[in-house]
């Protein structure tokens, strides 16, 4: 029988303290808390949470193992379906996936599945547990993975388990894609979590070659024709930042969230040991309402700026995870909702001095089902700021498509696939490069699907 207690709260760093450091916000459960939370699970016969998980983790099974205190077994269960549980436990939008479909959520609070996953993964890492590997059943054929983000890592992991000889090519100097350059330390620790999970993949025999920008350093055709790769998975993501298209966006002090976050996460600009500079603004304006906007805003706050998020719809429509919005507010980020920038204002030397905004109101629902914002005439006002960070999303870099003859794309540059197979024989794709900008876990799900398809293709 399930324990009818309230959800076990998770310990977090005090908002006032954490607003000045880059340490992880959430401490996670300890063993006792995890077991108590696990006792809430109803162990549904037809678990809706599993259906809602993009990689189909056997959630009730691992939660039952946690309840019994067999954390090692729980890790084994999760590892059957996910190669990066410490990461997913931290960054998945559980409220719209597993937890969003938990039956307990109908009347009360769902089981804290994400925090339990994180606990199991952290426990296993600290105990030095490694996922059971390899039911080797294949020829060991060479497979190339382009991009070491979530899609590529998940695909590589599954292929390695099947016995393939896998090499990941990464254009930056560090593997991880958005996990490394995009998501900040305070949400996803790099050394303790990301690097360790990637190390697990290396221990499985996966090779990672950094500093290789596929399309420029080497082409997909070269990899297949000259280097003997029998199949290629393209998981290059959607990396090109969008800008506003309003006057003043090239003034000094306007940054893409990608640049701002890359300087701080990948290049560690917040550390005094790093040679990479980051702009020290007094007042920062962040445009956008997604997770990336929250990450940029909270990074700027930690670097000592006063931060305002400007978003054109209302709070209800914020695409960021509820937890991130809640954390941002706790830390003292200001929100200007139903507001849209119309011009970046510059001083006489071309540096940002403010953002001219206009108030918005919600009109009729658009094709996404959300009510579309409409400007309120004559409502312009200025926000004082010396930096503007643009977090309006990203689009796809066309380099791979442009340098790989016969690779079909759609109007937006996304690779066209059928069950992860592209229009080129032996070339598969998944993640943001196929779907457009989405989440870590969706990309991982696509990467795993592609691994299955590649296996089918290679065993002929």
């Amino acid at each position, binding site marked *: 029988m399930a324990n009818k207690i309230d959800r076990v709260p998770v310990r977090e760093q005090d908002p006032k303290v954490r607003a000045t450091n880059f340490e992880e916000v959430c401490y996670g459960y300890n063993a006792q808390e995890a077991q108590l939370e696990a006792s809430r699970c109803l162990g549904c016969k037809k678990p809706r949470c599993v259906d809602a998980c993009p990689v189909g983790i056997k959630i009730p099974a691992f939660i039952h193992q946690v309840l019994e205190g067999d954390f090692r077994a729980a890790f084994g269960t999760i590892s059957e379906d996910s190669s990066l549980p410490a990461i997913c436990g931290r960054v998945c939008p559980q409220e719209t996936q597993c937890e969003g479909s938990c039956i307990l959520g109908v009347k009360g609070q769902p089981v804290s599945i994400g925090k339990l996953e994180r606990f199991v993964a952290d426990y296993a890492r600290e105990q030095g547990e490694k996922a059971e590997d390899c039911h080797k059943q294949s020829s060991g054929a060479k497979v190339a993975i382009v991009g070491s983000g979530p899609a590529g890592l998940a695909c590589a992991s599954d292929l390695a388990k099947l016995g393939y000889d896998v090499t990941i090519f990464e*254009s*930056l*100097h560090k593997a991880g894609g958005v996990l490394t*350059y995009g998501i900040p330390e305070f949400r996803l620790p790099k050394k303790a979590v990301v690097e360790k999970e990637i190390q697990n993949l290396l221990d499985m025999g996966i090779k990672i070659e*950094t*500093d*290789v*920008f596929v399309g*420029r*350093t*080497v082409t997909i055709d070269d990899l297949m024709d000259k280097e003997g790769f029998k199949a290629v998975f393209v998981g290059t993501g959607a*990396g*090109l*930042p969008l*800008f506003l298209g309003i006057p003043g*966006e*090239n003034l*000094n*002090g306007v*940054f*893409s969230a*990608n*640049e701002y976050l*890359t*300087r701080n996460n*990948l*290049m*560690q600009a917040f*550390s005094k*040991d*790093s*040679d*990479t*500079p980051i*702009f*020290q603004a007094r007042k920062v304006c962040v445009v956008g309402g997604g997770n990336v906007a929250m990450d940029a805003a909270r990074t700027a706050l930690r670097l000592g700026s006063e931060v305002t998020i400007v978003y054109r719809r209302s709070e209800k429509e914020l695409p960021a995870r509820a937890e991130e919005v809640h954390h941002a507010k706790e830390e003292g980020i200001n929100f200007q909702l139903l507001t849209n920038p119309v011009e970046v204002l510059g001083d006489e*030397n*071309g540096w940002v001095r403010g953002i001219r905004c206009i108030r918005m109101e919600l009109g009729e629902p658009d094709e996404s089902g959300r009510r579309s914002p409409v400007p309120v005439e004559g409502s312009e006002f200025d926000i004082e700021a010396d930096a503007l960070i643009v977090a309006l999303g990203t689009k796809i*870099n066309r*380099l791979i498509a442009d340098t790989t003859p016969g690779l079909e794309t759609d109007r937006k540059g996304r690779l066209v696939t059928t069950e992860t197979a592209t229009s080129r024989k032996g070339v598969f794709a998944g993640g943001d490069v196929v779907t457009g900008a989405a989440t870590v876990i969706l990309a991982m799900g696509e990467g795993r699907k592609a691994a299955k398809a590649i296996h089918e293709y290679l065993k002929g």
Partner: protein
Amino acid sequence: MFKITGKKQLTPLIYSLEVEASRIAKSAKPGQFLIVRPTENGERVPLTICDYDAEKGTVRIVVQIAGVSSNKICKMNVGDFLCDVAGPLGKPSEFMDIPYEELKNRRYLFVAGGVGAAPVYPQAMYLHKAGAHVDVIIGARNKDLIIMEDEMKQACSNLYICTDDGSKGEKGVVTLLMERLGNNYDMCVAIGPMIMMKFATLTAKKLNLPITVSLNTLMVDGTGMCGACRVSVAGKTMFACVDGPEFNGYDVDFDEAMRRQTLYRKQEQEANAAAGLEFKR
């Protein structure tokens, strides 16, 4: 890790390094650049590719000490390893699209400012070998900043040198020589400091000579991901790293590009001071 296999001091502040980077050596083309991260805590520094040898698997880069990172790179010696060398980045020069046989009928004028001689060299050499008529102007503030004179002579028909102070070659700036040579070319290519490329473009305009410039903007990843390198070209925002680095000079908003280069000037000066580096501007 990328091993340094050769090092030569060209002037008191400029060094040439040969680095083992077999993938880049095989794929580099004139007009492209690379990014070096010297050490674990180092910056990603965009640098021009001066030469490449596919057989030996090496590339040559030429670096001028202008701050903490370039100083780190220049202090490294043969046998040392650069943490990262990524590339080739950016689009190859436009003339790489012209059928090789047609190049022999073409006339090119290259204008190199200081260390800009390094990226000019592989372009001039490619065209010279293809039988094009190639003239090169190298200009710098003084003789200590003139590099690659002997090699450049092998890559062109005529080499002209000028210095601001007259310590080598003709006294004066590159635009003076451009005006004298006049519009006797199909295309001019200018590579050097932004201010030089701006004035070279103004002169080319006056001469009604088409001009290509190679923009050395700020960059982080160099793969189109950050947009730090964005420039206005014909009124449109472009990324120097993936849309360039070469653009039609007539279309570039040089004043904006120069202003954007100063974004971290304060931090750079503080870092230089902390490292005991001093530069005369």
